[in-house]
């Protein structure tokens, strides 16, 4: 038997919950991810799709099928963003994959890149400093020194995978003009993994403090607001705080989804809610950082 999981037509952080609901809990059925009608996908959506495929395979399920978008422009973007470089490992792809080279352009600052260890983080940080400097200071109007902070925020986000996920993950960075949602250009960092998630990672050191209240939402609060870590080393747990401080400085948004909850540091330009609980479960953790173009005083 095959179960069809519909990929949202506009696949981003807002529609991931819809995708998670369709993905559901693993079962014996073979999955078919149907993306044929996708009209637009943000890096966050593409990484969510990757995580779903990876989880299915890593949990011993049959490699899922994936029908790719029929829209030529959408398909070519997926190619430029590097989706097909790794998708074959997790999906049996149905449809003709375009011969488009992965490109680091003014749009795709960092193609979908696997994060498995410290070396990958070094690679990502090295690449992004070259690519992002012109965009951050030129197009977004951030101070020239902001590039280093950006690389720091990216590094810390990737290290969450290395240190906490227990499996590999993915990162992608993109710049685009958010005409409808914000009316400004933004740079977006998407990081996702198919690992154990915040609740399981923090269970040993933090679970007892919360008792019956312990869950995905409290785990996210403990990590992001209180700087809790699964390690007893007092120096641990500072990475998310550093990301938060950097994004606050540039009026950016930070959102982390894990399990059935999502926590966000919401800037004035966004209408997200700070904490959402009882969402459809989804494997691992997904982080989104958005830095908007600065507005003139």
């Amino acid at each position, binding site marked *: 038997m095959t179960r069809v999981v519909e990929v949202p037509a506009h696949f981003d952080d807002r529609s991931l919950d819809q995708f998670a609901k369709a993905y559901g809990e693993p079962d014996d059925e073979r999955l078919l991810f149907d993306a044929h009608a996708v009209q637009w996908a943000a890096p966050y959506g593409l990484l969510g799709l990757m995580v779903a495929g990876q989880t299915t395979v890593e949990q011993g399920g049959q490699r899922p099928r994936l029908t790719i978008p029929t829209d030529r422009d959408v398909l070519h973007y997926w190619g430029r963003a590097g989706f097909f470089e790794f998708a074959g490992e997790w999906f049996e792809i149905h449809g003709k994959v375009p011969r488009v080279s992965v490109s680091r352009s003014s749009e795709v600052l960092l193609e979908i890149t696997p994060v498995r*260890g410290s*070396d990958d983080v*070094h690679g990502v*940080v090295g690449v992004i*400093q070259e690519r992002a400097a012109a965009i951050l200071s030129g197009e977004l109007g951030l101070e020239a020194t902001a590039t280093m*902070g950006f690389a*720091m925020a990216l*590094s810390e986000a990737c290290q969450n995978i290395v240190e906490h996920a227990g499996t590999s993950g993915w990162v992608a960075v993109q710049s685009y003009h958010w005409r409808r949602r914000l009316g400004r250009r933004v740079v977006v960092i998407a990081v996702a993994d198919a690992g154990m998630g915040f609740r399981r990672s923090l269970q040993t050191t933090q679970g007892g403090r919360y008792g019956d209240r312990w869950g995905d939402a409290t785990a996210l609060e403990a990590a992001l607001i209180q700087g809790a870590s699964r390690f007893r080393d007092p120096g641990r747990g500072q990475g998310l705080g550093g990301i938060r401080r950097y994004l606050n400085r540039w009026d950016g948004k930070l959102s982390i989804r894990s399990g059935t909850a999502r926590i966000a540091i919401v800037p004035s330009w966004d209408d997200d809610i700070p904490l959402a609980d009882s969402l459809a479960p989804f494997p691992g953790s997904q982080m989104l950082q958005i830095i908007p173009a600065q507005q003139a005083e």
Partner: protein
Amino acid sequence: MNSIDLKTILHRTVSTGYGDLVTRHTGRAVRGGVEELLEDADGSQVAVIDFGAVGCLDISCADEIVGKLLLVHGSARHFLLRGVTEAHCEAISLVLERHSMAVVAEDRCGQFQLLGPLGETVKRAFAAVMENGPAAATEVAARLDMPTDATERVLDELLERRLVQQEAGGYRALTAL
């Protein structure tokens, strides 16, 4: 004065291809390299940790290098961070805040500053010692327009945190060495 170039240690201990101090793994390896050099160095001299050729420094690496070096060796040695950028200072300051520690840093233009969660009076006293060279508590008190006993308490805090040194003529900044 012992000067320890972090980029050289990074290349020696982790990889010649890296220019950034990122990840805990890297931080641990670089700290190990620094500690090896410190073992052979004269402990009475200021250990200068040179960030001049370092690109990005993330918080995890700052914690492993600066945080743990100060935690383990900070009560026995004086440290000076040289060649730091504004971005380095941000990462290091977060770490110092977490551990309630402080350190003297010199930027790439040769300007000195205290990093860490210190009160305004402590920072002013440090600035007075730095600007005046070796100075007695009475001189610093006059400059700050503070009672001498209160000034002595502030200077003692700087001394205890190994942010200044004491000599016959009074207090002197690490920068004056």
